[in-house]
């Protein structure tokens, strides 16, 4: 029930004790400020990590070849492992749990890409059709590379939207021929990618065409695949299977970690998510600890206030104040101070986060620190509860004041 008189009484008291009110309020505002800044920063870190994963499938597995480091079946260490199209087929057809798979062939030497009189240097990737699932390539015009391109060794290319903008200057690109190291390829698609400028300045060719055109024979640089919605354990089983199969095909020790490197994004992503929830928990613990310190401060100051006001409370009781009305006076004062101060802390905290966001724009591991509505609401609820807790013990002490003792003249 809202009783104007009660609030008037409390505001009167607070106004008459400005310093005390300000100090009490400050400790709570500070606690909430820290909580908000910490929570927002935790959120910023989480955003940063998500940003890092934004343009790659989080269920991808990358397989890179290396050099053997242990002798195996009489063969010396130091042999280079070279993937081929047969490795690709063997994995595609023979390993369960593989959802999409592509290999990449790295075209040796410097590559120039030209259209008409425009010439520039771009990333050129020769891939299988499934590659678009791994890089989250978004087709905006035409199509991506397909199986027919691979089968028929078609000289086609799919270009990033920045390449289109730079070479074609707003003209239609589909059906036009661009020259890669002087060899003409027909543009069949344009794509965009959330990975930023570098990804949008990439050009995709069918791997079979590239191998044939740029002296690649059947060599493959690396293989990339996705594992569907496999769990961490399942993905580990799949990578173990991959390693064994490749080791058998290339005759090296399956335990030789240097012969092939397998990066498992499921495990990495899981690790980051674990780290994030750890950080989030840590932040809440610290934040609540800080807030708790504020609450203890409020409780302490209210305790002193009650002690100071023992006589006043005694007078009020002699004049007909019931214990409950005395208790309510103290409780409401505590709740009012914590809520108002806490609100200021909340606003200040959001302000600090804005400043932080502004100051560290463009950092890859810390982005958009923010507090969402849920956090703000929980912080507010926390505040009122904290206020009530802070006020409770002093309020009970106040209600227990014996007028006889309070009014005794000494």
């Amino acid at each position, binding site marked *: 029930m809202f009783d104007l*008189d009660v609030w008037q*009484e409390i505001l*009167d008291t607070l106004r008459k004790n400005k310093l005390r009110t300000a100090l009490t309020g400050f400790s709570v505002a500070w606690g909430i400020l820290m909580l908000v800044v910490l929570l927002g920063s935790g959120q910023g870190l989480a955003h940063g990590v998500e940003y890092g994963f934004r343009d790659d499938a989080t269920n991808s597995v990358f397989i890179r070849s290396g050099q053997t480091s242990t002798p195996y079946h009489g063969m010396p260490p130091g042999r280079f492992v070279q993937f081929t199209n047969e490795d690709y087929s063997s994995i595609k057809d023979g390993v369960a749990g593989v959802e999409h798979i592509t290999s990449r062939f790295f075209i040796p030497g410097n590559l120039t890409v030209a259209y008409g009189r425009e010439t520039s240097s771009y990333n050129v990737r020769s891939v299988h059709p499934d590659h678009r699932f791994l890089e989250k390539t978004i087709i905006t015009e035409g199509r991506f590379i397909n199986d027919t391109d691979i089968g028929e060794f078609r000289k086609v290319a799919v270009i990033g939207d920045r390449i289109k903008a730079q070479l074609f200057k707003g003209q239609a690109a589909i059906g036009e021929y661009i020259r890669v190291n002087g060899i003409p390829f027909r543009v069949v698609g344009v794509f965009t990618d959330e990975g930023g400028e570098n990804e949008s300045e990439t050009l995709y060719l069918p791997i079979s065409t590239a191998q044939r055109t740029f002296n690649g024979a059947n060599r493959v640089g690396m293989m990339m695949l996705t594992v569907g919605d496999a769990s961490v354990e399942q993905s580990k089983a799949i990578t173990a299977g991959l390693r064994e199969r490749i080791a058998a095909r290339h005759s090296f020790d399956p335990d030789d970690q240097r012969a092939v490197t397998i990066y498992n994004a499921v495990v990495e992503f899981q690790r980051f998510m674990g780290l994030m929830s750890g950080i989030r928990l840590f932040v809440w613990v610290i934040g609540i600890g800080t807030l708790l310190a504020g609450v203890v401060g409020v409780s302490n100051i209210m305790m002193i206030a009650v002690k100071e006001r023992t*006589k006043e409370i005694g007078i009020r*009781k002699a004049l*007909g*104040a*019931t*214990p409950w009305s005395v208790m309510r006076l103290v409780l409401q004062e505590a709740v009012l101070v914590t809520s108002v101060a806490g609100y200021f802390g909340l606003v200040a905290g959001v302000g600090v986060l804005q400043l932080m966001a502004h100051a560290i724009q463009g950092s890859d591991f810390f982005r958009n620190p923010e507090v969402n509505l849920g956090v703000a609401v929980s912080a507010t609820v926390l505040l009122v509860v904290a206020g009530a807790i802070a006020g409770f013990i002093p309020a009970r002490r106040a209600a227990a004041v014996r007028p006889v003792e309070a009014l*005794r003249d000494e």
Partner: protein
Amino acid sequence: MGTSAASTHTTGNGKAAMLRMSGLHKSYAMGANTLHVLKGIDLDIGSGELVSIMGASGSGKSTLLNVVGLLDNYDAGEYVLDGQLVKNLSETRAAILRGQLLGFIFQSFNLIAFKTALENVAMPLYYRGVRRGERMRRAAEYLDRVGLADWAGHLPRELSGGQQQRVAIARALISEPKVILADEPTGALDSQTSLEVMDVLRGINAGGVTMIIVTHEREIAALTQRVIRLRDGLIETDGRG
């Protein structure tokens, strides 16, 4: 000040009983010992009486006043206030009864330091649930009655001792109590001011309010109709003024 037909209790001089005590005992626990302060008080005070209670320090007069004022419980005996037996009251109930029946005046005035004279006077009505506007209007009226209308906006520290005590008297009166309990009301005042305050109190009593004054000054006691002397927790003499 006539007799009241409503009450069956009467005092010796025929007045209706406002408060009546019989065989009242009170002791305090002092660590391991108990201090027996009131050792069987029998007392009748009629409606509209002006009584003073005297006694040396330690005689139990303050304790008696606390029990009379419902500020403290008692251990044995009976205490009937305005026709109701008050025994083992809850604090809440005691507070409500205090607000309805009793007004307090203290030696050190006990005004709330950060409230103006007007707000101090209005305080008891706040606990009676009277709305703010009405409260302030009546407080101004009572402040005028003790001659301090011009001082309404002043804080207690800006008033003289006599003025503060008059504010306290107005505060005691505003809830229209049946009994006013004054604990050494002139103890902190010079003799001239003391007499002025006593004039005010006598005037209030003349209006029909029962008045009990605890004092150790003979001159003050001499201004009351009946003097009760306490000694070692018992009534020593109970003389008419």
